[in-house]
């Protein structure tokens, strides 16, 4: 019998894999994909609780998150391409014009 | 248990159908292009003297492709290079699971839907699955590790993402008119009559939607006039430059299966799917004996005429010097046997009462025939367009998608909504 606990643990594992990716990796593309993974993990828990409470509000919220992720992907990737054009690097550590 | 068996049978049936359409399409392409360019086309390959107007040529083709070496160049990313061809075709085959090919088969206490899955999301599921289709091409282009292939993959990715939007938006009008996204429900909604004489097909209520959908479907299947990802005059052969043998054949099979899927969607959404015009399911079942007699009688007459025509086909007698000289006679014998079988069936069933399942099956067969007829027409339409129109330039293609199709699709949705509201007001 699958319980909420199963889904929540899976969601937590996915989420913290994403956290680890954001903190550890220096490649902006990978950081970007880690953020997508985190959003996705949150969606999973929304849907799980929607199933538990038998109300579809969670589905609507998850839909909004997906729409947000799409907007974020479009803008983020455009910024990334511009950065690469101007600085020709995708390493987050190299992008510190404001620092020194 | 029985339900599982029926589901399995249906899955095997629709996959078999979509895969058997591939040789038919190749034959269409070969003979159709020959017809359009005023050539003869393939006419040599034969099995026991039977050439079937070049159809047997497909077998020779398959044998050639299987026998060829599957070359893996040394500079490619091996793992992706090998799996890429399989992705495209498997993904498209999944999408067939929601295509209905007849109305529910109803007799005694059975009610079997004639589609593998009655998923509530129907059309959206097809859109979702076909949006995965791009990965095969992108992977092939990237893993080939060569500039032209990469360009092909890039072009394909941009094109597919761009044209998915008009593809999805153009059928929103259909959803609004028929009030469902379930394909079977949409087809059922197309069985009524408009103004009392016109079938309520998608083409008559959504003509602009049909045009938009067709253009977008051509782009999604990477067919001419939108086949820039493999544009051989610009980038060698695009994403499949480095492929050979069966892997190369898989790309072609994937493309043809995608065409079959697009044709099935056009037929289902805009041309009434399995609806026989003016004959809704109840009427078909009620008149099943007559329908059966008409079908068998037509079969008798057609096979008789075909046999006589084959018998008279001897304009190059003695040209080949082998069994192919006798092809007309061989085919005539087959046709006469078919004619006799139809006639025997007609005589046997004359004046007999059909059981309930027999009536339902006859109606289903008639609807399936209508569906296949429409499907074949649109498959031919794809070939026809390919050999008639020149290829777009890449910037023209993007401009068409973003600046023409998408605004038109929005206008279509808006207009449909206004008309629906007005009709509603008018009635109440």
């Amino acid at each position, binding site marked *: 019998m699958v319980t909420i606990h199963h889904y*929540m643990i899976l969601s*937590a*594992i996915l989420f913290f894999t994403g956290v680890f990716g954001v903190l550890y990796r220096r490649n902006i*593309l990978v950081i970007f994909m880690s953020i997508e993974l985190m959003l996705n993990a949150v969606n999973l828990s929304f849907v799980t609780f*929607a*199933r538990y409470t038998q109300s579809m509000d969670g*589905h609507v919220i998850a839909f909004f998150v997906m729409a947000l992720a799409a907007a974020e992907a479009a803008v983020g990737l*455009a910024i990334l391409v511009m950065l690469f054009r101007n600085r020709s690097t995708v390493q987050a550590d190299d992008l510190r014009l404001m620092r020194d | 248990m029985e339900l599982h068996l029926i589901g399995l049978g249906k899955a095997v049936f629709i996959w078999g159908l979509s895969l058997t359409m591939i040789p038919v399409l190749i034959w269409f392409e070969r003979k159709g292009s020959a017809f359009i360019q005023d050539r003869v086309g393939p006419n040599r390959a034969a099995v026991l003297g039977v050439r079937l107007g070049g159809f047997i040529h497909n077998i020779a083709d398959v044998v050639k492709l299987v026998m060829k070496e599957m070359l893996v160049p040394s500079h490619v990313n091996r793992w992706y290079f090998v799996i890429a061809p399989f992705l495209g075709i498997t993904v498209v085959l999944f999408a067939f699971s929601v295509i209905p090919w007849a109305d529910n088969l109803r007799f005694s206490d059975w009610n079997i839907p004639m589609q593998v899955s009655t998923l509530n999301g129907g059309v959206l599921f097809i859109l979702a699955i076909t949006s995965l289709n791009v990965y095969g091409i992108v992977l092939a282009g990237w893993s080939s590790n060569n500039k032209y292939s990469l360009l092909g993959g890039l072009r394909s990715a941009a094109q597919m993402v761009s044209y998915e939007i008009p593809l999805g938006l153009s059928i929103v009008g259909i959803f609004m008119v028929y009030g469902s996204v379930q394909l079977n429900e949409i087809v059922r909604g197309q069985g009524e009559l408009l103004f009392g004489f016109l079938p309520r097909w998608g083409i008559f209520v959504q003509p602009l939607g049909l045009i938009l959908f067709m253009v977008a479907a051509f782009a999604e299947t990477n067919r001419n006039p939108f086949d820039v990802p493999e544009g051989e005059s610009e980038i060698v052969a695009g994403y499949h430059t480095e492929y050979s043998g069966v892997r190369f054949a898989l790309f072609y099979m994937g493309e043809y299966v995608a065409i079959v899927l697009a044709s099935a969607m056009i037929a289902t959404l805009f041309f009434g799917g399995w609806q026989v015009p003016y004959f809704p399911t109840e009427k078909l079942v009620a008149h099943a004996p007559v329908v059966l007699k008409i079908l068998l009688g037509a079969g008798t007459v057609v096979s008789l005429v075909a046999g006589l025509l084959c018998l008279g086909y001897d304009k190059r007698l003695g040209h080949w010097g082998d069994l192919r000289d006798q092809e007309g006679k061989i085919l005539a014998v087959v046709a006469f046997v078919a004619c006799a079988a139809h006639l025997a069936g007609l005589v046997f069933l004359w004046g007999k009462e059909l059981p309930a399942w027999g009536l339902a099956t006859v109606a289903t067969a008639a609807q399936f025939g209508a569906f296949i007829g429409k499907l074949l027409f649109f498959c031919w339409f794809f070939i026809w367009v390919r050999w008639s129109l020149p290829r777009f330039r890449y910037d023209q293609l993007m401009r068409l998608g973003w600046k023409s199709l998408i605004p038109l699709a929005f206008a279509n949705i808006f207009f449909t909504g206004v008309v629906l509201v007005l009709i509603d007001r008018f009635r109440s």
Partner: protein
Amino acid sequence: MELIVFYILAALAVTGAVVMVTRRNPLNGAFALILSLVSVAGLFAMLHAEFLFILQILLYAGAIMVLIIFTIMLLNLSKEELREPPVGRIRGLIILVASLVGLLGFIRVFRGLPALQAEVDPAFGNIEPVGELMLGNYLYPFEIISVLLLVAVVGVVLLAKKVI
């Protein structure tokens, strides 16, 4: 039966996520992430969220990931450009431990939650009820999201275009 399917999908999702985080080449990572996203879509289907199952494949796997892969292929990074500066053993360890602690904390918080009830309304998660909710109760958020998408489109055009 349900449990077996769940474990298979969960294993695929976690594998995809871990591979995505650890591969150096982002293209490998992107394909691993697609695997993960599709497995989560399967989990949505198991949770009777049919609409979200379709959207997950259509939007995430079919659109967002294609966009990301398109960008990766467009940049076409060389091996040197992909080499990342070393994070440092201590910092790496701290990050790993922090993630693990967070994960364990999460798992502790959610211990002992009840099982999911077996029976569910057949219309649950279908397109019609979700759509009605979206355009009824959540009308304003829905409209705001559409404005946000419009702003994103305009912003991307502004960013990407050299001469306007």
